[in-house]
């Protein structure tokens, strides 16, 4: 048994991992990952939810607030407003910036000033936010979009504030997540028996198969259980909040994974060099 030679990966006969887009819309993408491991597919899911950077309002300075909502309530609502983050790459994280608090390289300033002077309800929406950087505006879906409601004003009510939007990831706060949801499924027929259905009488009747089942061959009920089988088709669909294009969320997710791995690789080399564990010919 000669296992000490070439890396095992090059022995494989697989054509390598692949991805097929099923549907690509303005705010959603659905795709199938094949020939890859469950752990890779799951890491991609995790990273899309929590580690793809976007821009979101992080600090709010309220000058006047005579509305019915408390300052912190409004600040929270502002944080959740999606901001077009197509150009996030151009903004630095504040912690990597040379400035002391925030500056134009690591933040975007948005201001809002609305006063109700008429005797009817006035709504304040995300469209009332004025950005100092045209690349980073609150998301507007189309010209019929009236914006996201922040607060309603009555005669005499006034809201005046300044927001600082920063780059961040959803690991810190969910407002930075580019997605509102990621659907993840494999083995829709449960051939691998990774799922144990809770049933009254008949699993087939009580647990209808998902739409992804159409894309797989229906299993023969008499076939013996293949205990060596591994999942290798992953159905993923993700819906964005509008701050990033769906395809960019996926590719930035992959980039995030690559960056993490690359950094670990680099630091591992350093650590191994410091241990001088070189007897086996570590030759990186």
């Amino acid at each position, binding site marked *: 048994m000669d*296992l000490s030679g070439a890396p095992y990966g090059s022995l494989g006969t697989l054509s390598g991992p692949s991805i097929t887009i099923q549907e*690509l819309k303005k705010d959603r993408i659905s*795709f199938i990952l094949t020939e890859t491991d469950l752990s890779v597919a799951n890491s991609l899911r995790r990273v899309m939810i929590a580690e793809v950077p976007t821009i979101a309002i992080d600090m709010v300075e309220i000058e006047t607030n005579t509305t019915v909502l408390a300052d912190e309530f409004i600040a929270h609502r502002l944080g959740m407003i999606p901001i077009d983050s197509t150009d996030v790459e151009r903004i630095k994280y504040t912690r990597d910036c040379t400035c002391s608090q925030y500056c134009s390289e690591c933040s975007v300033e948005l201001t809002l000033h609305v006063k109700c002077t008429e005797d009817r309800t006035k709504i304040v929406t995300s469209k009332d936010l004025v950005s100092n950087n045209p690349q980073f505006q609150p998301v507007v879906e189309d010209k019929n979009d009236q914006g996201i409601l922040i607060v309603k004003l009555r005669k005499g009510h006034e809201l005046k504030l300044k927001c600082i939007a920063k780059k961040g990831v959803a690991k*810190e706060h969910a407002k930075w997540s580019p997605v509102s949801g990621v659907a993840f499924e494999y083995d829709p027929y449960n051939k691998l028996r990774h799922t144990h259905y809770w049933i009254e009488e008949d699993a087939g009747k009580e647990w209808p198969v998902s739409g992804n089942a159409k894309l797989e061959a229906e299993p023969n009920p008499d076939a013996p259980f293949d205990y060596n089988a591994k999942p290798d088709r992953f159905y993923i669909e993700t819906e964005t909040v509008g701050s990033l294009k769906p395809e960019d969320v996926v590719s930035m997710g992959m980039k995030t994974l690559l960056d993490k*791995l690359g950094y670990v690789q680099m*630091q591992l080399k350093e650590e*191994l060099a410091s*241990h001088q*564990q070189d007897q086996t010919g570590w030759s*990186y």
Partner: protein
Amino acid sequence: MNAPERFELFVLPDGRKKVSMTPDTKLLNAATFMIEREDHTLGNMLRMQLLKDPRVLFAGYKVPHPLEHNFMVRIQTIPGCSPGVALGDAVTELIQEIGALKNKLELDVIRQRAFEEAKASQGGGLGGDEGGMDGGVGMHRVVDMDF
């Protein structure tokens, strides 16, 4: 009030090592690696990749404490290989795999956008005049017209 800072999850404190190795004191070719400021995203993926390596006799990972943002991978290899090499190769394999996926995704996006655009131009007809979110600069963003 005394909640830990959220950024502690991913910001490596000054002077802390990202990767540190502790060789096993009793077994040859066995070591534990501590990876700082990473979680199951990397831990599980690395473990599964290591288990595919026939030179690896054992690979396991754990997140020792929920308030300490690190994970440990323990690796034992056959003679002639070392845990460090195995881990390095696993990372390289993953970089190649995800890199390949990323390239394929980007190609497929171009194909899919062209497809949706063709469908929109011949199918829709009365789709209105919106050009998506941008000012009509590029080709991206096709408006969904099959209601």
